[in-house]
């Protein structure tokens, strides 16, 4: 007998905090997706971009300054991942009014942890006398410290957990947060993902052939050649509908169901095959008691990978079909780049904004569909359409899979 993988939850999203290349709110994010203009400079020689922006496959958050998000001492010495996570958490502190900090847990997903700090620290240990090596830099190399910094900054102490499963980390963290919430370990959970783009990671991925050959990502598109390395952080407040109502908070969405899985990739350029993705998606829908035709929007994980996108397109096509009843598909990585641990939560934040506004982002400007892929229903232009149920999928070239099913809040959820 096979174990059941997808799990349903009685859980709502009652707050979103984010920092990403388009801005620091779900509205900024959604607007950017609807505009369809990628967040990275199209000219690699653009002045003022710094070393990261000069990389042909990088989409850093230009001008990010933690002090603009959180006015506290000591933040400038934190790793960039810690800073991004704390910046995303900052707006949630006010949104958690009425919940004792000791009753708030934190779950952060990260693919790379503080890789750049690891490289910097290694460099320092070899180039300066040991007695001058900065011990605080060592602390920031440890992968759970970004989550720990979030707890320290805001006093959230019910529990603190970091999970890492590649680009699926953020959705895995949200699922783990829902598990911990439903087991009664906290009244509210701050869960999501954060990753910083770093030169070491870009070089690693460039050598691996994961990154795009040119300054374009083009998920599901013709002439796609890989991902653009992005960065960001996105955290949700998860709590029970009853508790949100009691606090006078109207939820932004319901977290109905979540699933995680793994499929050892036969080919690292491809990641899990469609045949390995479809059972998870079907299980997600089955557990939520939904017909595929009741889903209006799918946020895909596609990042421009020639073979990975093909498998994802096949899986979406297989599960949701085509034609007028097939859900619309959006591919946020065509605008944001691959933001790793933040990618799933950022896609979920965009979905929530689509639920709120009734507006579904269209294809990136200049998008040319790949005629060799199964058709993916990406609207040519943003369109007005109510979104009641949405699926967010992440799949990694290393074999991790995770998916969420979000539902628009119901009238009875209103405070």
């Amino acid at each position, binding site marked *: *007998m096979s*174990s*059941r*993988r997808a*799990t349903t939850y009685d859980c709502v999203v009652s707050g979103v905090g984010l920092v990403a290349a388009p801005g620091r709110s779900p509205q900024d994010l959604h607007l950017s997706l609807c505009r369809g203009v990628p967040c990275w400079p199209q000219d690699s020689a653009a002045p003022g971009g710094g070393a990261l922006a000069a990389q042909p496959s990088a989409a850093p958050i230009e001008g990010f300054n933690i002090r603009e998000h959180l006015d506290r001492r000591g933040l400038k010495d934190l790793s960039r991942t810690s800073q991004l996570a704390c910046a995303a958490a900052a707006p949630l502190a006010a949104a958690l009014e009425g919940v004792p900090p000791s009753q708030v*847990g934190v779950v952060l997903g990260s*693919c*790379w*942890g503080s890789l750049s700090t*690891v*490289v910097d620290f*290694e*460099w320092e*240990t*070899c180039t300066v006398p*040991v007695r001058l*090596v*900065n*011990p*605080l830099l*060592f*602390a920031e190399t*440890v*992968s*759970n*410290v970004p989550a*720990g*910094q979030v*707890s*320290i900054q805001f*006093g*959230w*102490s*019910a*529990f*603190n*957990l*970091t*999970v*890492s*499963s590649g680009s699926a980390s953020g959705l895995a963290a949200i699922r*783990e947060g829902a*598990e*911990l919430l439903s*087991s*009664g*370990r906290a009244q509210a959970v701050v869960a999501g993902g954060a990753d910083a783009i770093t030169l*070491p990671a870009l*070089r*690693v*991925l*460039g050598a691996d052939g994961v990154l795009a050959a040119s300054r374009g990502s083009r998920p599901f598109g013709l002439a796609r050649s890989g991902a653009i390395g992005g960065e960001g952080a996105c955290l949700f407040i998860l709590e029970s509908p009853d508790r949100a109502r009691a606090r006078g908070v109207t939820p932004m969405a319901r977290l109905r169901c979540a699933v*995680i*899985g*793994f*499929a*050892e990739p036969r080919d690292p350029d491809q990641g899990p095959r469609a045949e390995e993705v479809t059972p998870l998606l079907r299980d997600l829908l089955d557990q939520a008691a939904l017909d595929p035709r009741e889903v209006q929007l799918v946020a895909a994980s596609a990042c421009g990978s020639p073979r990975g996108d093909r498998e994802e397109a096949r899986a979406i096509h297989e599960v949701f079909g085509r034609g007028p009843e097939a859900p619309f598909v959006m591919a946020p990585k065509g605008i944001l780049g691959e933001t790793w641990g933040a990618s799933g939560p950022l896609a979920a934040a965009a979905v929530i904004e689509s639920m709120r506004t009734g507006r579904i982002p269209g294809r990136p400007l200049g998008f040319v569909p790949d005629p060799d892929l199964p058709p993916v229903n990406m609207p040519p232009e943003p369109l007005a359409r109510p979104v009641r149920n949405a699926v967010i999928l992440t799949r990694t070239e*290393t*074999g*991790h899979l995770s998916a969420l099913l979000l539902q628009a809040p119901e009238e009875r959820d209103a405070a």
Partner: protein
Amino acid sequence: MTGTIRPCVTGMGVITPIGLDLETFWESLLAGKSGAAAVRSFDTSALKSSIGCEVPAYSVPEPVRRHVLGGRCTELALLAAAQAVEQAGIGPLLREAPDAAVVVGTTMGDVTLFEQERAKHTDRQADDRELASLAHRPLDVMGRSIARMFGLSGPVTTAPTACAAGAYAIGMAAALVSRGRVRRALAVGCEAFSRLAFVGFTRLGAMSPDLCRPFSKDRPGLLLGEGAAAVVVESEKDALSRGAPVLGYVDGFGLSCDAYHVTGPHPEGLGAVRAMIGALEEGQIPRDAIDYINAHGTGTHLNDKVESLAVRRVFGERAPRLPVSSIKALTGHMMGAAGCVEAVASLLAMRHGVIPPTWNWLEADPECAIDCVPNEPRPARLRHVLSNSYAFGGNNASLLLSAPPDAGGPVS
């Protein structure tokens, strides 16, 4: 646990500085055989400390080696996992039903490949070849390798929660089973001896120049270690129905965060208190029923003082008589592996009815007013044990482990 299914342990494996199998590991714990020696993995001439607890020479059989996607940390993890699966006798079951979960705890992950590549280049320039050693994704490569070795398709989760990670791995695996999310889970804690960690802890002033003396007055600090441990967790019903021996139960998983400081514990031990109480409440076990605590007990002044304070706060008047020991005097601090190795030590202690002592203890510290079981194994019937783990980021975890009915030891 929070679910309706009672999770039990049916297989264990260890790769440690004091033993590459359960039997040797247990004998070393009782005999006081230390893993401490001059560091072999890298040059320590520029460092104040040169003693560490490294795993002795080991071999990786070809059937295991072909699944190693990373470096030394992955090797240690796979070897421990192979032992645990063999003891549990679930190899054929995993092939039939591959949807078991893998939960891995680690601190640094598999960064040693990167260190080794960098060490080859005296000019210290970062070139693509050196950075390519990070391409295996050092944080989650151990879990992916384990899934690959056993052909698993269930969730593969890595909890890089630093020095509490091994305990997190067991607690998360037990929660998955207890809540019916999976029928079986493999929990692994692993860490390779890392130059980065060695230098880092040296600069934090936490390292002992010679021995680790947990809870002893004037204790000089911790020794860094490495290793891996693995446990197979499944439902009691499944274990009994297939006739597998139950080695112990995971009845509680207490979590908390200090939310105080990145590297130091809360001075009042509040987080440690909440983690212990959380484990007890989850297991619905009264405080009086705890027979032994396997302490985090790193041997640093601050950790042992605060952990002792937390034990006194939780157990009150009983605290001075409650046995609390640390095995880190022998194994060193195995960081991400520590919580898992120490849980295995706790399960072995219940099975054999003997408390592994705190070796190297010299003199009572008034700030550690606990019974730290100094220097001599102590026979005891152990029904319920707490295993504590604390970490950077203020991450605290306590496991409540319970003995199987046939556990040994004299009734106190």
